[in-house]
């Protein structure tokens, strides 16, 4: 219950779910990279993740919960924070004391959420449809062609790249911010911030690279 009422408990929950999603991103990017390195590996990894009971019925629901929790809590906090200042300032100089990224987590977050809708439409729904609704026979080779098919479209590739930029901005503040929320502000914080910022750029850049690569080879 405390999670629903106390500001700090919410903040800690936001940080923990955020860190979990950050870790998931890395895993996702590494799997995607195999599509560049070796499509066969990509196919077999995809097949494994799509059919292994542990991944499907334990990890996937946990991931979904993590996403939904982070999103819903983010929106709840945003509403509460807006109510904390009902009358706005006439003159407000946010950039004098804080970064754009830190002040616009809801904006970058919503952009990522919109992208997530497209992403599920592109990959998750067709997969569920294929496996559970049409109950097609197993086909170990179908994943890579489906991926190529999606990234043949320049508009879609562009939208994906743009979304990764928003992801970058979101992570730039969010990843290091999670440590502060958990109470980690000490002599290691500079190093942590350095690492989180590197991560915030490197991982989305990896995704962009993969998307462009898949588009350009066709």
């Amino acid at each position: 219950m405390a999670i629903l009422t106390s500001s700090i408990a919410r903040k800690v929950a936001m940080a923990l779910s955020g860190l979990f999603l950050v870790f998931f991103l890395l895993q996702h990017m590494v799997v995607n990279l195999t599509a560049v390195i070796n499509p066969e590996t990509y196919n077999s990894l995809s097949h494994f993740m799509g059919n292994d009971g542990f991944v499907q019925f334990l990890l996937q629901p946990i991931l979904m919960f993590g996403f939904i929790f982070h999103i819903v809590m983010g929106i709840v906090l945003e509403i509460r924070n807006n109510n904390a200042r009902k009358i706005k300032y006439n003159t407000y100089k946010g950039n004098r004391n804080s970064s754009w990224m830190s002040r616009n987590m809801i904006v970058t977050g919503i952009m990522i959420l919109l992208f997530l809708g497209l992403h599920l439409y592109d990959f998750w729904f067709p997969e569920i449809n294929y496996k559970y609704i049409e109950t097609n026979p197993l086909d170990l080779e179908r994943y890579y062609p489906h991926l190529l098919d999606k990234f043949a479209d320049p508009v879609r590739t562009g939208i994906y790249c743009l979304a990764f930029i928003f992801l970058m901005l979101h992570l730039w503040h969010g990843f290091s911010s999670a440590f502060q929320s958990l109470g980690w502000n000490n002599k290691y914080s500079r190093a942590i911030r350095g690492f989180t910022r590197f991560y915030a750029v490197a991982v989305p850049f990896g995704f962009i690279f993969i998307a462009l690569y898949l588009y350009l080879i066709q």
Partner: protein
Amino acid sequence: MKLTLKIWRQKNKDSKGEFKVYPIDGIEGDMSFLEMLDILNEQLINNNEEPVHFDHDCREGICGTCSLQINGQPHGPDRLTTTCHLHMRSFSDGDTIVIEPFRATAFPVIRDLVVDRSSFERIQQAGGYVSVNTSGNTIDANAIPVNKHDADESFNSAACIGCGACVAACKNASAMLFTSAKISQYSLLPQGKIEATERVLNMVRQMDEEGFGNCTNTGACEIECPKGITLVNIARMNREYTAASLKKPLSNSWS
């Protein structure tokens, strides 16, 4: 110096306020910002107009009474400076200065630029103290050893004057910098550790009840704080709160 002041005027808590523009002349660089407002008020009184109400007391940067959002920044453009210590040399001839009250739902405007900051007092009352018996058997302060580092840190936190600039600066109007400073100043000292669990839980609960926003770690508060209170305090509070919430249900307290 010739200036144009754009000041928020509001009759009382319930009335709708608005900005009024006042030209002012003859301002010197070594006047303080509040002196400048004093001069404006004298002029207004001479013209049979209502003077601008603003908060002030010590005028030496230690009481935390002065406030004001000046050109979009609490306590104006200078770092580590309260409004009473802000000099007019920080502005230049011909400037337009927008002066607003601190804005937060938990800091309602009472009149013009004066806001009600008693929400801060209620947070303090919820646990910002140590229970000591002072009836004739006071113990020598030096009887309890405190290491220098903790003593200094505690002193730094205790430098918070409760002005509310952190709330005013925060895009979420969060009071976490203030609350965490008030928690830290005790939690670092042995005397404060005894009631630490209850203190952090009660003060944070009061902070939330007052309607302050949630901290999103933008860091605006520590930049604008006239007393240099840092985010380290908030991290400490988060840590203590998390530990206290886990510990409380296991303790044998009945409250």
